[in-house]
């Protein structure tokens, strides 16, 4: 294996360790009595059932969900940035998350409130919504293989506005008491889902990220534009759509259950690129691992910062990501992009 291959392996190994450590940390921190000491005794008989339930049934699914969502949104961010050749892309900013959320909410409205945790139906409907946004986005903002930043961002904003309005209407029609839940979903918040949901998100996310990793070298070749990618041997249409469908799928799987957690797909890939360079063969898996750690930390913060009141995690990602986006946008304007 080449020197580069070894250093990539080392980086990914360290990021995986970091993710495992972050998960451990997040499991030990919380409002209840359960702490790190109990974590070490999780398999022993003398741990009281109440503490064990807090750790295994409340915290563990939530922490795993945060890790999966962080990985998915970061991977999707990389894919959209590469296919649209625009570093400001993110599933939330582009309105892809908005479309997914609308699909998920429409599914529950039609299937009945008891199906909120439906492990397959809800992500499937979210995927349909995400693809609808993607088609609109590509039709309006991508002209002859190029996207103009302002057009892209405006289309994303408008898609989000329409979707948010429709979501609020669908959730609260006939019952305004559900307003708070709808608002939390629009901001993005992580709960403790049943294991069937964790399994569903994990399956879709791992499959989607594996697909994107396989495409990652071709994503490199797209960096000079679609025509040059073709000259370098890329089947451009096939690669573009495979990447966009994979990214939409993993976005939908996440958004279906946590709502519109924003900016993760912007913050994490930019940080990873700054640290390890732009090569997608490293960027895709590294962003997924780092994104998992990032959202686990953000959600832990959301749990404990104003305890016992919990913040929706989307508040934290938006407070970090919003200003970061503005900074990137200003920089881009100055450079005349």
């Amino acid at each position, binding site marked *: 294996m080449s020197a580069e291959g070894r250093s990539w392996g080392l980086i990914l190994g360290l990021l995986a360790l970091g993710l495992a450590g972050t998960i451990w940390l997040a499991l030990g921190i919380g409002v209840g009595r359960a702490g790190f000491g109990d974590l070490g005794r999780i398999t022993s008989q003398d741990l009281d059932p109440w503490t064990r339930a807090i750790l295994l049934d409340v915290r563990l699914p939530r922490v795993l969900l945060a890790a999966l969502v962080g990985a998915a949104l970061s991977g999707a961010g990389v894919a959209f940035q590469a296919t649209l050749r625009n570093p400001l892309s993110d599933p939330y900013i582009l309105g892809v998350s908005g479309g997914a959320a609308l699909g998920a909410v429409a599914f529950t409205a039609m299937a009945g409130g008891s199906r909120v945790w439906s492990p397959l139906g809800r992500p499937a409907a979210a995927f349909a919504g995400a693809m609808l946004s993607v088609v609109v986005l590509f039709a309006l903002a991508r002209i002859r293989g190029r996207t103009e930043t302002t057009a892209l961002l405006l289309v994303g904003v408008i898609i989000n506005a329409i979707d948010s309005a429709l979501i609020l209407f669908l959730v609260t029609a006939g019952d305004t008491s559900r307003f708070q839940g709808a608002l939390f979903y629009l901001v993005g918040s992580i709960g403790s889902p049943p294991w069937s949901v964790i399994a569903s998100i994990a399956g879709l996310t791992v499959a989607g990220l594996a697909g994107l990793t396989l495409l990652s070298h071709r994503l490199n070749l797209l960096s000079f534009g679609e025509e040059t990618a073709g000259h370098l041997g890329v089947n451009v249409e096939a690669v573009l759509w495979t990447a966009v469908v994979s990214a939409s799928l993993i976005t939908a799987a996440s958004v279906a259950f946590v709502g519109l957690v924003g900016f993760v797909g912007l913050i994490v890939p930019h940080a990873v690129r700054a640290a390890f360079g*732009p090569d997608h*063969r490293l960027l895709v898996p590294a962003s997924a691992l780092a994104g998992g750690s990032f959202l686990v930390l953000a959600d832990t913060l959301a749990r404990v910062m104003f305890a016992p009141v919990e913040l929706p995690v989307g508040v934290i990602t938006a407070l970090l990501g919003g200003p970061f986006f503005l900074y990137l946008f200003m920089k881009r304007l100055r450079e005349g992009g």
Partner: protein
Amino acid sequence: MAGPSASPPALRLAAVTFAYRHSPIFDRFHLTVSEGEMIGILGPNGTGKTTLLRLAAGSLRPGSGAVEVRGSDLATIGPRARARTIGVVPQENHLVHDFSVEEVVLMGRGPHLGLLGLEGPRDREIAHAVMTRTNVLDLAKRPFRTLSGGERQRVVVARALAQQPLILLLDEPTAFLDLRHQVAIYALLEKLNRESGLTVVVASHDVNLAARHCRRLILLHEGRIYADGPPAEVLRVETFRTVFGVDVEVRADPSTGVPHVVPVAAIGAIGPGT
């Protein structure tokens, strides 16, 4: 130009017809390029130079007729096999993200890599060799976007050479370069052509540079070949009057005999908007 040998030409456009939406460019266009030739494509703006290159590169599909590379129809060759045969140096190169020069040159190995797209030692050797030839080795670790125009162009030539193509197509490679780098690019192309037998087709605005370095010139006029042959045959005073609408003096370079064109006056009124 093609000899009596049985081997098919490197590149052949056979009765190619092409139109952008409502503006027809080529109507049953023919061109044959033999292996090892170095050809300059000349002609005024909008006459089809870039379109011709894009058709030859497979970026555009002809409406009718065929583009053949070594006797096989481009339409039947997949993108990877095509990229192992044809290298392209576009006029402009906009890169997103800060890939290094070395990473950019290794992108040229793309069509030779396996499913995972990982380079091996041989790919690195080839990248190293083409960077040496194009004189960009000492830029290897620099971000591509920080390079000057001349440096970028040499790196993009290196990327195309890393594909190990049979044919190199270049679209006005000197358009944004200063004099020194213009001359350097053509000298490099001529060297590649003479030493490695690489077939080179270069679209050019610069008649004199092309005349000095290409043994065959093709002059396009309104989607047709107006003149085709060695520089001394193609570069005539009457030709420039008809095709470029300009009066020129053509002098033979005393040492090489290569014609040198000096524009004297535009023919007819050039007003705003023309």
